[in-house]
């Protein structure tokens, strides 16, 4: 009976020490990691929507409960005090996990300024080509009114996006996310302006 207790204690000790180590490292590291993520976000905001004075996270105002669940965050970009762009943080299910995308729209031109894949866990060498500018630039300047569609060959019409070779599932997932943001942008920003 005694050695059972000894075993239990030993494993408890090892687990406790491991927990201590990981916990302490986490405490030291997590604030830095937050800072990292925030900095990355700011950089990606600039990349997707250049020239904004400041970007406010206004999900509370615009992200209503009935909105598409894929939309995680809505940020508004201001230029000299006026709302000039909308940045959607949207998630969609890719080939082997969730893909987070940042899609920027310009309110005045109703066009997609750019998109950027923030995080993905697609198969290395295949799906993860989604994060390369070569693919992301294909969304630049697309009109927000028409739904985007993925094609395998050379895109003929304006609203078509060419898929990454051998990873159509990932390309479709990214496009689905961008479409979700596009619809929300169309409903809240474009219609509100026109009528």
């Amino acid at each position: 009976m005694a050695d059972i207790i000894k075993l239990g204690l030993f494993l408890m000790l090892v687990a406790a020490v491991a927990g201590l180590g990981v916990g302490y490292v986490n405490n030291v590291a997590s604030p830095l990691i937050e800072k990292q993520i925030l900095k990355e976000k700011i950089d990606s905001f600039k990349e997707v929507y250049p020239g904004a004075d400041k970007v406010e996270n206004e999900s509370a105002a615009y992200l209503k409960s009935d909105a598409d669940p894929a939309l995680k965050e809505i940020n508004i970009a201001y230029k000299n005090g006026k709302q000039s762009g909308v940045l959607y943080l949207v998630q969609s299910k890719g080939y082997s996990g969730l893909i987070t995308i940042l899609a920027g729209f310009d309110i005045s031109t109703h066009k997609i300024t750019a998109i950027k894949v923030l995080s993905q866990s697609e198969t290395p060498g295949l799906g993860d080509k989604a994060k390369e500018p070569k693919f992301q630039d294909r969304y630049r300047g697309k009109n927000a009114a028409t739904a985007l569609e993925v094609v395998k060959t050379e895109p003929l019409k304006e609203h078509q996006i060419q898929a990454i070779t051998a990873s159509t599932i990932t390309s479709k997932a990214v496009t689905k996310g961008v479409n979700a943001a596009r619809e929300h942008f169309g409903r809240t920003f474009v219609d509100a302006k026109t009528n």
Partner: protein
Amino acid sequence: MQEYFIIIISAVLVNNIVLSQFLGICPFLGVSKKLTASLGMGGAVSFVLVLSGSITWLLQQYVLNPFKIGYMQTVAFILVIAALVQFVEMVMRKFTPPLYKALGIYLPLITTNCAVLGVAIINIQKDLSFTKALVNSLGHSAGFTLALVLMSGIRERLEEADIPESMQGAPIALVVAALMSMAFLGFSGLL
């Protein structure tokens, strides 16, 4: 009921844990020489996989999430799996010693078996409900055993085939695995 069926089909065929997700290759190549050993291995891994799938899900739901210690996920999951494997090892040594000898080093290596931890993490990533996670683990363990049994069936017939000397053993097993995973690619359009 319909989603469960889809989950099982996707786990066994579409993204088979071994042939399309690349997890659990070490035992897959190591043990699949004889059919009996691979059935034993399939059974042991299924037992560990289903149990760890459920325990890790409960752990995540009632310990990791409420206390916001998500970063402990890997360490906690691995501890659960290791304890389970040790338990299975003792049970097998007591009740089925020949199978225990046949599996040899590959039994403790189930702990680091990517498939077991992989399924545990997939259950959380896809935030499945408890029953769905259980069904998913069952599906993946069936997929693992299916791949293992198919492989050992082929490899037993390979013994007679005259393969160039340097390709015998693991190399030819890998080439066969390549062909099998190509075949399983065919299922990817299913779901």
